[in-house]
């Protein structure tokens, strides 16, 4: 990997910004002492278990807890009647019951929770809760959700949000048009560490909760409302995260664990196994995309028409924001003067979907990149050259009317990608069996191999959009230790495994010119840092730490009566008393959509570009991804090795959606809720990945950083499927591509016509109109 940098070499601090230092929590993780959520333990604790609906849609006629309570060793069996406060919760809108009342809307919905002396007993007791269901016809198809006669998932209808974007002249003519229909599957985040929490009742009537979550404060807000407790009596501490990828943005077991602890007066641990993890967290939205691109004969985009449909499942989760992203990013990272984009996310009786790495962008990237390839073929222009001609740059205007004011080094990235060496094709015969498609299965000797090359280029907003002020707070305390000054950071920003705490350590070292940085526990005793989502924490929590460090230096300068340079001056004399400063970092403010979908919607943008090389066994339908080359827009790499790690891991996840990852539903129920049946890429599936970083600092942002956690995932799916198309000449408009698609057992997906636009209030999520606003809406607008 190399870093192509426009940043002048600045003053470096060992282990500071720009160094590829090893992660600070690496050794405890490698020796097995790092405590994850599933490792939580308290003396005398009880174990929880959850009774879930097997039905996608049913009326709950009655719940009989008697048989479960009769088991010796069972201490509590709770239902909706035992929720003392608000009966519902939600990240954006409170439309999801803490425990189902009246009806269940998806298979897997929690109906009752149990606490018992041991985990096996708790599971048995959960199975003894007798629920009398009256089955209702389920709504299982997102297109059907728009038809007038469809069953209603919620009283206010099936449209969760519609976004309408009209820019320029949507009727503008073009010399060449290409049209396509695309589908992507429901993908599971599948973090290796399952959900876990330990709730401990407190003497003040409140509760202390340790849990794996991506945002402590928005959890607390939802939990406290359901428990009818003031927020300060719900104290949350982050438990070790075994990955997240969006799966911990929503409440999973938090409310249940707290209810059980308060009901029993004992510590209660609730922990999901893999199957329950599949049923208990949110997934990536399945999508259907209708796209029409018009261009001039010399390859300039003239117009994009898009109709997007996302299946939000039974509850709103973060669907409105996912749709906002998908709609605003639907035309891709290209200049297009005219656009008509309509996106709808609907409720169905499928499992709820929410945040997953990329957050609406991977779906539309899969579509717009296939369209650019179609257009390149129609115009007989090289696919990369077509992208270069239309590449966004600083000053470009997006379909929302937003002007890109920050960095957008897309042309340079395309040049870098084009210059990366392509490996020579291997001879088809005589290879180690592992080097054929199907590898370990030993199914081929290279008889029907075809090689293909494909590209995926995409972009994504950094941080929250549409007017939200998702600020981040951090405090820095500087004191004199035995070997020099020591900085201690406190932040509620969540380390999921991506390396945030290492990045914050590097920032503090650079700002304060020291080596030793420690952390206080990550909990709700400090203000919100916002979610570890949306590629935002390097900028947001990093910005807060930088600001707090500078406030500390200002105080030292005041004590000294002169400006202090912590890299030069001896601080010992000034640190007779420690200095502590708490700061809040805000990104620049954005706006919502107007009636035409115009607005300054996003804070900044990060770009990604990948080239995939594949070999396809056309007789067996098997794909071997040979190599992936990635170019990443990074602003400035605080830790280049960690950036490469994000590219490699993110690419693997996008590769998964390209060729294997798909939650299969039978009657709305997840049919493959295990790692036996839901395949994630193994070390045999992920090829060598080489990456180049392009540093073009974002103006007005600490160090000029951009967040890079999602970019590679967004573009990898498009690149890998494009390479399979190149190898086979097939349409392949569905991700993941199955062997059946390649060998001709399953035809390309078709959709007869573009679905109608619904008639809800445009732009505004419908639950807001229905008066269900809460969650992050209130937290970020200060109305909590």
């Amino acid at each position, binding site marked *: 990997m190399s870093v192509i940098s426009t940043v002048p070499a600045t003053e470096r601090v060992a282990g500071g910004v720009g160094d590829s230092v090893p992660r600070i929590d690496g050794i405890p993780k*490698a020796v097995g002492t790092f405590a994850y959520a599933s490792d939580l333990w308290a003396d005398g604790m009880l174990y929880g278990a959850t009774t879930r609906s097997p039905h996608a849609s049913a009326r709950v006629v009655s719940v009989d807890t008697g048989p479960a309570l009769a088991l010796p060793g069972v201490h509590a069996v709770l239902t909706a009647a035992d929720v003392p406060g608000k009966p519902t919760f939600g990240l954006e809108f409170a439309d999801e019951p803490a425990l189902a009342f009246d009806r269940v809307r998806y298979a897997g919905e929690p109906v009752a929770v149990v606490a018992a002396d041991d985990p096996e007993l708790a599971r048995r007791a959960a199975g003894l809760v007798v629920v009398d269901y009256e089955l209702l016809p389920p709504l299982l198809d997102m297109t059907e959700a728009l038809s007038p006669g469809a069953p209603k998932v919620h009283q206010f209808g099936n449209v969760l949000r519609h976004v309408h974007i009209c820019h320029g002249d949507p009727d503008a003519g073009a010399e060449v048009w290409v049209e396509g229909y695309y589908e992507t599957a429901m993908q599971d985040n599948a973090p*290796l560490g399952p959900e876990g929490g330990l709730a401990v009742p407190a003497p003040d009537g409140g509760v202390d909760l340790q849990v794996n979550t991506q945002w402590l404060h928005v959890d607390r807000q939802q939990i406290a409302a359901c428990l009818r407790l003031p927020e300060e009596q719900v104290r949350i501490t982050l438990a070790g995260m075994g990955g997240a990828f969006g799966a911990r943005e929503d409440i999973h077991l938090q409310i249940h664990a707290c209810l059980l602890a308060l009901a029993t007066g004992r510590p209660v641990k609730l922990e999901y196994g893999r199957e329950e993890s599949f049923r208990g967290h949110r997934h990536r939205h399945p999508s259907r995309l209708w796209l029409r691109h018009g261009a001039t004969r010399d390859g300039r985009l003239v117009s994009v028409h898009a109709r997007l449909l996302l299946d939000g499942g039974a509850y709103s989760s973060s669907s409105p924001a996912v749709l906002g992203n998908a709609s605003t990013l639907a035309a891709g990272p290209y200049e297009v003067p005219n656009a008509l984009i309509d996106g709808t996310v609907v409720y169905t009786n499928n499992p709820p979907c929410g945040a997953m790495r990329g957050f609406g962008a991977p779906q539309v990237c899969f579509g717009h990149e296939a369209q650019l390839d179609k257009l390149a073929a129609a115009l007989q222009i090289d696919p990369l050259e077509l992208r270069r001609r239309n590449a966004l740059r600083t000053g470009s205007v997006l379909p929302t009317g937003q002007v890109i004011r920050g960095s957008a080094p897309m042309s340079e990235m395309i040049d870098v990608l084009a210059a990366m060496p392509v490996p020579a094709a291997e001879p088809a015969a005589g290879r180690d069996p592992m080097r054929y498609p199907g590898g370990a299965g030993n199914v081929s000797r290279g008889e029907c191999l075809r090689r293909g090359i494909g590209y995926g280029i995409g972009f994504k907003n950094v941080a929250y959009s549409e007017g939200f002020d998702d600020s981040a707070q951090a405090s820095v305390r500087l004191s004199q230790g035995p070997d020099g000054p020591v900085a201690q950071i406190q932040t509620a920003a969540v380390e999921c495994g991506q390396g945030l705490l290492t990045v914050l350590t590097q920032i503090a070292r650079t700002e304060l010119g020291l080596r030793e940085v420690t952390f206080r526990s990550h909990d709700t005793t400090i203000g919100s840092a916002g979610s570890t989502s949306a590629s935002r924490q390097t900028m947001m929590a990093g910005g807060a730490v930088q600001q707090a460090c500078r406030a500390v230096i200002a105080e030292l300068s005041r004590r000294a009566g002169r400006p202090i340079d912590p890299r030069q001056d001896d601080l010992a004399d000034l640190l007779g008393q420690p200095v502590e400063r708490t700061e809040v970092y805000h990104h620049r403010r954005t706006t919502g959509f107007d009636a035409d979908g115009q607005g300054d919607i996003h804070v900044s943008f990060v770009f990604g570009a990948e080239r995939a090389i594949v070999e396809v066994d056309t007789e067996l339908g098997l794909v071997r991804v040979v190599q992936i080359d990635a170019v990443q827009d990074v602003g400035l790499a605080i830790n280049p090795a960690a950036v490469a790690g994000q590219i490699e891991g993110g690419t693997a996840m996008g590769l998964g959606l390209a060729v294997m990852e798909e939650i299969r539903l039978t009657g709305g129920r997840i049919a493959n809720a295990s790692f036996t049946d839901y395949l994630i890429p193994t070390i045999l599936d992920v090829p060598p990945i080489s990456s180049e970083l392009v540093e073009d600092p974002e103006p007005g942002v600490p160090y000029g950083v951009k967040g890079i956690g999602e970019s590679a995932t967004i573009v990898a799916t498009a690149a890998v499927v494009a390479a399979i198309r190149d190898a086979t000449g097939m349409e392949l408009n569905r991700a993941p591509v199955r062997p059946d698609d390649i060998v001709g057992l399953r035809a390309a997906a078709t959709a007869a016509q573009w679905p109608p636009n619904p008639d809800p209030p445009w732009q505004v999520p419908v639950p807001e109109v229905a008066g269900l606003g809460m969650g992050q809406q209130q937290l970020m607008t200060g109305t909590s």
Partner: protein
Amino acid sequence: MLIRVRVNGQWREADCWPGVSLLGYLRDGLQLRGTKNACEQGECGSCSVWLNGQVVCACLVLAAQADGGEVRTIEALGDEGSPGLVQRAFVEAGAVQCGFCTPGLIVAVTDLLHHDPDPSDETVREALAGNLCRCTGYQKIIDGVHLAASRARQGTT
């Protein structure tokens, strides 16, 4: 039932439900939680331990099957003060992100290097095909294996 196992060189015992897996015995019975529980059906390798010298998924072995046997876990390979060679190589190579798969991978890599001190990329991939990682894309895991292997061959630590 009382199950007695020699774990990392010491005889240990715990009173367990007869259906408990070796994984549950180690984690809940003996409080040895370095061995991880990601899938509990033998697909992910996070719970890899040695049972009588063979690497097994502890979730697929009944604790009762290990009764009287010899088990080695991640805890035998190093601690925070003196991490083992593979453990340090993984951290330095960037092979650890969330870390949930890491203990199982380190057991598998330690076993691989015991049998093949200089494995090719293909050998590494085949040997680690039973260990899922969701964070790294595996590239830096392969780097970590080679780093550990070269240090072991050179006798450096």
